[in-house]
């Protein structure tokens, strides 16, 4: 995991099934009601930010494996909305490695961008990668 290494990203198209999903929608009509979302100033229903974080988590689990499930912090700032039918692509780059007593602390800058290459989420993942037993 050298500094500067770019993680393989994933792409997902946000469909109505995602916006209405039991886990990522709930009762908030901003995620599925066109008129309500427009009245709140959006072009249409927006995805919950945690759906985008879930996309980034998939990328992180693919990269860190079991290390992504412990001793990890995942900070995200949602900068712009993701709308129905947007295509979201995740990205990440290793920015730091620090030796600790129980392994190596790896820092990864992560983001989501939309089909217009606008970064709509930015974040940082910090994870302790332990040596294999």
């Amino acid at each position, binding site marked *: 995991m050298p500094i500067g290494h770019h993680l393989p990203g994933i792409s997902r198209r946000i469909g109505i099934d995602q916006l209405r999903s039991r886990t990522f929608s709930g009762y908030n009509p901003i995620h599925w009601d066109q008129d309500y979302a427009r009245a709140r100033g959006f072009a249409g229903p927006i995805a*919950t930010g945690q*759906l985008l974080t879930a996309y980034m*988590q998939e990328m992180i689990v693919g990269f860190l494996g*079991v290390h992504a499930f*412990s001793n990890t912090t995942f900070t*995200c700032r949602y900068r712009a909305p993701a709308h129905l039918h947007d295509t979201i692509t995740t990205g990440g780059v290793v920015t730091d490695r620090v030796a600790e007593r129980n392994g190596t602390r790896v820092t990864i800058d992560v983001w989501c961008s939309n089909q217009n290459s606008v970064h709509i989420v930015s974040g940082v993942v910090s994870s302790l990668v332990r040596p294999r037993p």
Partner: protein
Amino acid sequence: MIASTDDSLVWEDIPVGHTHAWEITVTQDAVNAYCDGAQDYNPWYGPSSSPFGWPVVPPMLISRLCRFTLAPLGKMTGWIQVLHRNGILVPVAVGSTLAFVGEVSAKERRRGKPFVNLRAVATNASSGVAVFEQTSEYICRERP
């Protein structure tokens, strides 16, 4: 400005220091619903096993389950999450019961917008081990 519905919370009524505790058993059905929503079908999430020896809960599902701090007061209808920080402490087996404690940690106006900060910690209800912690920030609604 959108009129507030009966049970939708507004910034003026959010009490800093409010706490709420709840328990949730993370079933395979709940994990499957998460996987469908996220379109993430990692086999580690079940029903087969993972390198941990059992199906493991996707950490961001636990993040979603942290959102009930304000549930006794009303709904966060129209709120927009702008920041969250998740601490993923230990892996959690599917079928575990998690005990959550949430708190309203702060609220303030910045650049004319009303913000509320929430904090939640999840522990394994059987072992008492802390498994997940989250701080989050929302832009919420104001009284019309």
